[in-house]
């Protein structure tokens, strides 16, 4: 805990230096971040940003617990979103909502499984297969909303809006989808800590050769974990498009960097379910506060991205030192 606080301070100091160097007032900027993130208006924006970030962080934490890195979150997220739009446009009412959510999760799960099979059957490392599959998925979705699924009434690369009866009810700045994400975190936490399956994933994370020797079958585990990971990512995509503006806009899921920030949160928390949640919320607050800071002080919002990255770097270095001290070579 003390390490986290010290590194946080260090990151803030560095950020202040950067701000001062570009002619801005650090205290004013930091103050704007905090009020922006947690103030009466800001808290809504923070929440809206936090839902997908927490969702993606958890999605990526699931396989990370076993030491497996899913770098294809963006592709799975986008495929989930576009599948939800397709299904939601054709199935009415509450059934449509449910079907869209299921379709989103299924699409993400299937796509992630493809990458998993690439590793288990074809020997292509997961790091590589998930990453390489991500780009074609995003390109495919980009194609769909420019041609077959394009919104006829607009020149922008976006799909048509979902009909009014196939939308998640709003809850302030978010939708009831927030409960789905919270439920996912809770399920992950319980499975991880209290079930044999979660135990086996953790054992694999502690030592892959130990796990194999103890009878834990890696190929099956890889596919199951990746399917859950992709399914969760796809679900997040579905939840986002079932909320305002109720359509798939090319790049809208990518530009906010939900996936990469989520990955950082999961890495930071060593994929611990609750730790990932806390880290994701923290990063979401920081990012959302950054937007508000820019509106208030003209300091570019990218500062918060810089702060986040610096914080992670300092923490990684500090963790490394702690690890070295425990295992003197």
């Amino acid at each position, binding site marked *: 805990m003390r390490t986290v606080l010290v590194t946080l301070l260090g990151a803030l100091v560095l950020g202040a230096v950067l701000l001062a160097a570009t002619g801005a007032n650090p205290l004013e900027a930091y103050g704007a971040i905090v009020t922006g993130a947690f103030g009466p208006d800001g808290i809504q924006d923070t929440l809206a940003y936090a839902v997908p970030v927490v969702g993606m962080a958890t999605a990526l934490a699931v396989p990370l617990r076993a030491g497996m890195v899913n770098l294809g979150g963006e592709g799975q997220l986008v495929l989930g979103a576009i599948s939800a739009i397709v299904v939601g446009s054709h199935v009415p009412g509450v059934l449509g909502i449910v079907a869209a959510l299921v379709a989103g999760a299924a699409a993400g799960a299937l796509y992630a499984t493809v990458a998993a099979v690439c590793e288990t059957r074809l020997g292509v490392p997961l790091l590589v297969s998930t990453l*390489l599959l991500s780009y074609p998925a995003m390109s495919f979705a980009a194609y769909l909303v420019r041609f077959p699924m394009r919104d006829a009434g607009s020149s922008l690369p976006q799909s048509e809006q979902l009909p009014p009866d196939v939308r998640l009810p709003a809850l302030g700045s978010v939708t009831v989808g927030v409960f789905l994400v919270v439920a996912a975190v809770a399920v992950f936490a319980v499975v991880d800590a209290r079930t044999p399956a979660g135990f086996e994933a953790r054992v694999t994370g502690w030592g892959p050769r130990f796990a194999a020797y103890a009878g834990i079958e890696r190929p099956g585990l890889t596919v199951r974990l990746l399917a859950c990971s992709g399914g969760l990512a796809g679900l997040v995509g579905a939840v986002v498009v079932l909320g305002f503006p109720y359509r798939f806009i090319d790049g809208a899921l990518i530009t906010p960097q939900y996936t990469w920030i989520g990955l950082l949160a999961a890495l930071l928390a060593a994929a611990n379910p609750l730790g990932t949640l806390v880290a994701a919320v923290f990063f979401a607050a920081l990012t959302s506060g950054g937007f508000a800071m820019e509106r208030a002080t003209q300091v570019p919002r990218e500062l918060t991205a810089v702060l986040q990255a610096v914080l992670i*770097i300092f923490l990684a270095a500090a963790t490394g030192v702690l690890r070295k001290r425990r295992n003197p070579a």
Partner: protein
Amino acid sequence: MVDAALFASALGALAPILFAALAGALCQRAGVFNISLEGTMLVGAFAGVAGSWYVGSAWVGVVLAVVAATGYSLILAVGHVSFGGDAIVLGVAINLLAVGLTSFLIRTVFGTRGTFSDPALQGLPDLDLGGIPVLSGHSLLVYLSWLAVPGLAVLLYRHPWGLRLRGVGERPDAAASLGVSVTRYRYGVILAAGALCGLAGAQLALGNVTLFSENMTAGRGWIAVVAVMLGRALPYGVLAAAVLFGLAEAFGFRLQGIGLPQQATDAAPYVVTLLALFLSSARLRGRTPT
């Protein structure tokens, strides 16, 4: 469809990836899993444009790109080698930092958003090698990237430093017990990789085009990481992998010409690389860190 211009444009697109892939391979040989190539290249690109703009010379831009990227690579060197931080975590964070930092700076230094370009910005001149088709008409950095391949091979296999860093990569404890400093060699390869990524960024922002736009590396650093794995961190293996990717990308542009949507051609290089990986899958099994 397949003509000289295709190969020429492939060669031009190849250089940044080749520099970055050589950087990654060098680090891999010394036991450092360096995935911060993407971010370091981006920093180099920005510094290159900034240098060229303020001094009015593309070559000053190149020098600044190398200096900035090398300095930037100190983050990985200090964080990973001195402090023992996890290379993957640091790599992802360094990449994100680069995006945030360069976007921040493009606002505060150039006062614009998205892309900075100006007709007065000096780019790298194309060299005319007696008009040889395909091979002529590239910037000096492109030719330098080709020379870097045998250069790396000589360094690795014929120079004492190369022998030592290969030992450091294979068994750091053994190297240390023979008096070879693991820290010094790992710092060395990371900083050298930084310099190479600086050249990659300079070629990207001053050679292929003459502008800086946010996130302009667009995944090339990641492709370089894949090239290192495909090429098993061997100088000529990495070259082959990078050439494959360059060709796929150039071929993709051709597909656009016959009516395929741009998105299909965007995806083409990745699909091609995946296929190549399937085909060589058995060879990859030993080499990847988990």
